[in-house]
């Protein structure tokens, strides 16, 4: 093992940090109040060439790893942009990996450059209202008609659909009863989100108002066969491929936001004087913050190990899941402690930490619940029997 800090990571942190510094706390406070996609941030990242950080150089990307992407995403949330900032670019970073890995040369040429340049935004349309986490039970159908598929069904919790031109969508091409396994018969498409056939309903949320979440009603959307990624019927497998990177990035975002909260809390504890002493002199204030620092560091190490394994082609499922679990819990604790540290001001909007607390709930809930992670570790690592 070698724990030296890579210079590349330091320079990513510096460069990304500089972009984020253009979007201050007031920007995000206002976005949280009024909503509206942070186009300016997305544009700045596109212009800096960051959206293709882990896509191949041949198509305009930087060809770096998930490790570097994790460093970037962590830097965004840690800047105070939080999940509002991270989610605005999140999908662009890892979402098109299936295209990069399983797409044809023609598809890569056609699909990746506009995304990397920020000319197109994409959303990730997998989850459905009635299937929850059980992806193989998806109801959206894609029927082949000549050189097209026709897609119909509902999707829910689709982020950035309001502003996206494209979507990566999973749909069933062969009925489940005609497949040898429930995970077969699903196909993956990267295609235009044509609003003539897709109705979008935005879901108001408790936090991260800036980045829309939506329910999609798809009715007869024609999708050219040329937009199908990889073989018909193997879409689930392609999506699985992106599952670990997504968990790693979410973990990095959670520790980043936790650090933002911890910084605010530490600053406040040092500056806030009650009767001639900073409140940070109280062990009741300082010890929980110290504990959060340790928890965030440990979760970050786990995240980095998971990313390193992914980038080196080693199995990383256990580490990616553990990283997401530990990071979300540590991030949540840090945000909650930051609110507590602020006392009466903790829930006043202008102190920002209550916004962090609302946003940090996302990495705890998505893309997989902590309970299912515990099941995964129990089964795959400890060798205990399946419990459900």
């Amino acid at each position, binding site marked *: 093992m070698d724990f030296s800090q890579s210079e590349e990571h330091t320079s990513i942190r510096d460069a990304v940090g500089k972009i984020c510094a253009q979007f201050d706390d007031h920007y995000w406070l206002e976005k949280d109040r009024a909503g509206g996609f942070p186009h300016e941030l997305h544009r700045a990242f596109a212009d800096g060439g960051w959206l293709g950080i882990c896509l191949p150089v041949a198509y305009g990307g930087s060809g770096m790893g998930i490790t570097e992407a994790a460093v970037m995403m962590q830097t965004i949330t840690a800047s105070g942009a939080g999940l509002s900032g991270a989610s605005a670019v999140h999908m662009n970073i890892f979402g098109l990996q299936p295209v990069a890995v399983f797409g044809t040369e023609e598809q890569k040429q056609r699909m990746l450059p506009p995304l990397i340049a920020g000319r197109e935004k994409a959303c990730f349309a997998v989850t459905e209202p009635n299937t*929850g*986490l*059980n992806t193989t039970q998806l109801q959206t159908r894609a029927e082949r008609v000549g050189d097209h598929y026709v897609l119909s069904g509902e999707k829910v*919790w689709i982020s950035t659909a309001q502003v996206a031109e494209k979507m990566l969508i999973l749909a069933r091409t062969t009925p489940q009863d005609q497949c040898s396994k429930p995970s077969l018969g699903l196909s993956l498409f990267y295609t235009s989100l044509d609003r003539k056939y897709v109705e979008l309903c935005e*879901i*108001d*949320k*408790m*936090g991260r108002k800036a980045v829309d979440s939506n329910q999609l009603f798809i009715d007869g959307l024609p999708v050219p066969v040329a937009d199908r990624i990889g073989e018909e019927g193997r879409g689930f497998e392609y999506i699985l491929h992106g599952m670990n990177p997504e968990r790693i990035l979410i973990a990095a975002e959670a520790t980043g936001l936790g650090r933002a909260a911890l910084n605010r809390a530490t600053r406040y504890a040092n500056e806030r*004087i*009650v*009767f001639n002493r900073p*409140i940070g002199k109280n062990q*009741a*204030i300082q010890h929980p913050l110290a504990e959060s620092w340790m928890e965030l560091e440990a979760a970050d190490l786990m995240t980095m190990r998971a990313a390193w394994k992914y980038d080196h082609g080693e199995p990383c499922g256990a580490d990616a899941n553990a990283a997401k679990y530990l990071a979300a819990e540590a991030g*949540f604790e840090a945000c*909650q402690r930051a*609110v*507590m540290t602020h*006392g*009466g001001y*903790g*829930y*006043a*909007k*202008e102190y920002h930490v*209550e916004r962090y*607390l*609302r946003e940090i*709930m*996302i990495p*705890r*809930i*998505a893309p997989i*619940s*902590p*309970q299912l992670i*515990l099941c995964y570790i129990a089964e795959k690592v400890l060798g205990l029997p399946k*419990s*459900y």
Partner: protein
Amino acid sequence: MNNHHLDTERQDNIRMLSESAQNFAIKASPLTRARALRGSATGFDRSFWTKLAEQGWTGLLIPESFEGYGQGFGEMAAVVSALATQVAPEPVVPALVFASRLIEHSAEHQLKTGGSGELQQQLLASIAAGELIPAVAWQEELAGLDVSLLAHAVSAAPTNGRIQLSGEKHHVRPSADCDGFVVTAKQGEGLSLWWVPATTAGVQVNVVALADGTSAASVRFDGVMLEESQCLAQGAAAMSAFTRAYDEALVMTSVELLALQQAMLNMTLEYLRTRVQFGKPIGSFQALQHRAVDLLIQQELTSAVVGQAIDMLDGAATVVERAAMASRTKARASDAGLLMARESVQLHGAIGFTDEYDLGLYVQRALVLSAWLGNAQTQRRRYSTLTKLTTPSV
């Protein structure tokens, strides 16, 4: 809540009041109302306050001698709980418990020592009638939440036969649409309490938005000129009146937190019973089931402590016993409220995070109330000092 010490007749009355309050609250204050008022200018609805007055609830705690109904905290808790269950944004505890009781305690002392109590008489009658909504302005930047150090930077100084009030107070609820403030001020070395109508020249109210859509205020007093007659209490009497009202407000805020906790738990249990995943209701998954049991046990513990605290307010207790009980109760209710908020969102998964789902209303109100008047940490510190568990903290 267990009301062991109450006689059967009173228990029955409280049960009936509780039912009627719940019926009223559900009809007159559906969750859509709470939702619509979030972030509005005043954060609450003055016409709804009139309805509360019509029910007699604005004067429920006020003695009959002051034109109220002279009921106890058991009765008030029934009303507070019903309104909290509907996330009604009206400042019932801040105005009708904290401020109103503070005015009343100061009156009791004035009357005992031969004073007129005229101002208090007037104020309480207006409060009971639902015409006056008061707030307490007490927290200062430098003193934090230490209730033994009530006023430091805000002072009341005699000037040309009148009194000049200067300084700034924070975390004042209600904020906008508040009719006047009971202000704690330093006078010489002692504490004094002043009644300051919101319209007085030199009073400047800055509204701070809170996470739950209500607000608190920072109130500046810029050389505000007062008459001697605006003084509610001074010295030891002021301190004693304040501490008592503060403890009463702690307990009643805990009643609100308990009601929110119960509402969140009910929603969560209902969700676990009906939401299907992997072909089964998710409530059949052991891990979720056990978390739900933990939450239920937490709720029952909170309920037991809150019940004990209400009994104590209605019964006889020393100042220290009452304060220790109040702090312990608020600490418990705040902790349990936060835990329930966190877990109920978690157990709901994504739907718990949507704004249109009502859970968020409860969660955000619980977050705000857990901090109001001092969070669990602060209350535990006070409890520790009061019970002299260990040597004083350094």
